[in-house]
Each structure stands twice: as C-alpha cells, then as structure tokens.
C-alpha cells in the first residue's frame, strides 16, 4: 500500500480526482498550477479541466504556480484521519483557524476555483482513509 504522501499515493489521489463524477461536472474551468507541500515534501499539480494532468515531485523554483498550500505533516495526518477532529476537517476550517495551514500566492485564483478546489481536497481525504 502506498504511503502518504509518496508519488504512488499522489497518483492514487490523481486517479480518485479523475474518476469523480462531481468534479466532472463542476471542474470544466478548473485550470491551475498549484503547489502543495506536506511537511518537507513539495509537489506541483498541473490541473486541467478538473483533473490532475501531471504531478511534479520536488519541483524547482522555475516551475511557476498560481497558488500554494502548505502545512506540517502532523496537520495533514489529522485532515486525512478517519474522523478528522474539529478545525482539521476542512480546508476552509484550517484557513480560518489553523495558522500552520497556509494558502499563499494568488489566492484570488484559488477562490475563483473554490468549489472545485474544495471538492478536490475533500477527495484527498477519501484517499487518505484508504491509504494514509
């Protein structure tokens, strides 16, 4: 079983996103390059039409992104746990109440895609329940 958040686990996440019926409906305009950092480990996700088209592990600074999400591993583990505790159960809860959870960059782009982004991060929780 792939270990969170190694590349195989990320590939499982991308597969889960690609097969989601709701994102297929709401993600048609969800085209972003976004960074996501789990503790010390950073990826860039190339999202096109609501699907994760490419995952770039350990990207250099010459890979531009529109926005970034980063948090310590311990926090991600809470988010992905079977029953996430209050304040760690949703990305907007963490944005509001957990200072170590950081959304940065062009946050306007993130909010323009809030519905699809929120769904995608919710799907990460479902992968977490299977693999984390």
């Amino acid at each position: 079983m792939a270990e969170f958040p190694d590349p195989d686990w990320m590939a499982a996440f991308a597969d889960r996103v690609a097969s989601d019926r709701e994102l297929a409906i709401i993600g048609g305009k969800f085209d972003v390059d976004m960074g996501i950092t789990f503790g010390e480990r950073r990826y860039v996700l190339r999202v096109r039409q609501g699907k994760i088209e490419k995952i770039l592990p350990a990207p250099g600074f010459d890979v531009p992104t529109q926005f970034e999400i980063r948090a310590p591993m311990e926090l991600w583990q809470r988010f992905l746990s079977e029953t996430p505790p209050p304040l760690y159960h949703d990305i907007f809860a963490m944005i509001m109440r957990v200072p170590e959870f950081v959304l940065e960059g062009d946050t306007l782009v993130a909010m323009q895609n809030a519905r699809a982004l929120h769904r995608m991060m919710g799907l990460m929780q479902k992968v977490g329940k299977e693999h984390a």
Partner: protein
Amino acid sequence: MPEFEPIVGRYLNVAIQGRNHRIYVEEAGEGIPLLCLHTAGADSRQFRHLLNDEEVTRRFRVVCFDMPRHGRSDPPDEWWLESYELKTEEYLATIEALWKGLQLDRPVVMGCSMGGAIVLRVASDFQDEIRGIIGLESAAHAPGRYNEFLLHPAVHGGELVATYTFGLNAPQSPEEGKRDNWWYYAQSGPGVYRGDVMFYSFDFDAREHVKTIDTAKCKVSLLTGSYDYSCTPAMTEKVAAAIPGCRYTEMEGMGHFPMIENYALFRQYLLPELEVMEAD
C-alpha cells in the same frame, strides 16, 4: 389529494426603523410562539425540518422569516443606492418589528449563527417581553469571519460563499442536509453574506450585555456543535459562563447549521430545551 406540507408562507408589510419592508414569513403549528432566525446569507428554508416536526408544532407556533434582502424578502426602497452592512441596532429593530407586527405574545426567540449572536441582545434588551431564547452557535463576540473575496467582481459570489461555509458542517452530517444548505447559500444576493458577516465580525459585541440577562425572567439555552469553527464550543462556553442559570450543551458531531445539516440529531438536543421553555 395534493401532498402539501403544513408550512404556510405569506408576505408581511412592516415598518423597520421607519422604512417599509415586504417580508416573507412562513409558519406551522399552534401554541407558544417560536420565532426562528436564519444564519448569515441564508433564509428561512433552513428551518423546513423544524416546521414539519409535529412533535414541535403541536406545542409551538413556529414562525420563520427571511431577513430583508434575504430569500424572498425584498430589499428596502432605493437599496441600490447603499452598500449593505447589517448593524446590530437594525437587526434588533427588524426582529422587534416582526414579532410585534405578528402580535406574538412572549415568544421564544431561536437563532443560529448571526441569529445566535443577536438573540443574546434580544435577551438582554427584551427580557421582560419574551419567554426565552435558544441560541444556536452563539458567540458574544466573533471577529475574523470577513474577507474581501466575498464580494469581488472576479469571483462567483454564490459558489464562493456556499463553498466557504460548507466546511462549517460536521463531516458526519448527512450529505443531503449539507448540500441543501449549500444550495440556499448559493442563492444569496450579491454582497448579502458579506454584509451579514460585517455585522458580527465588526459591529456586534454583546460581552457586556449578556451579563445583564436575568434567567429568572428570560430563559437561556445555548447549543453549539463540536465541529463549528466559526463559533467554537469554547466561544459559547464563555457566554454561558457570563449568564447565571443559563443552560449550555455542546452538540457532539454537529457543525454550524444544526437545523438543516442534521435535523435528526439536532432535535435530540432541541426538544429538551423546548420543554424548558414551555414550563412556567
């Protein structure tokens, strides 16, 4: 026979702070008036399960209304010439105008979120005229909910506001209830949610007022969901600690929208409080 629900909706014309308003009101049941206040950026549809609960409506006349600009209530005249920012005194005046306009005798006033905040002022200001309050997700002071994206021309406001608030539900709540609330939020007018959260992020502060509430005259029940990160249980506990005789219960596995996100669980917490309100 048509399968109508027992809920009856009508429009009430009422003056609020000297301006005429056309307000949508719906109700069901008979008995002690239970006036219900919806959350920011939403409307009285959030109470549809309560309005259909016969165990409640055979003892209580449940009355819900959409705030001006919300749901099916119209904005006041020349609304397009003013930026919407709800103020505490305007909110109080609206509630008073509705309850007196409807001639509700010593109502119980129940509100959630911004409604849960303002009921604390209703209790402090009108404690001789009401039976009690039930505060859902009540905080006396709750800064930090405002952000500039809530009314931005490059953002779909309905989708953002509905999604921004979706995480306020508990993860355990049934998908249907959470999605119903998402839908209601997505239908809010531009800037209405922003104007509501400006009220309780910046204007509202009842920390001194709650100390004046006499629970011998006006009963106070407070219920807050364990997953509510907007008004956390700790925030409501502070309110409860300031009101001697107040009842407070944390609702396990519940978020910020108990009456719509998980009514089956919510009623287990609500029914005992209604019994307390009913007793003389």
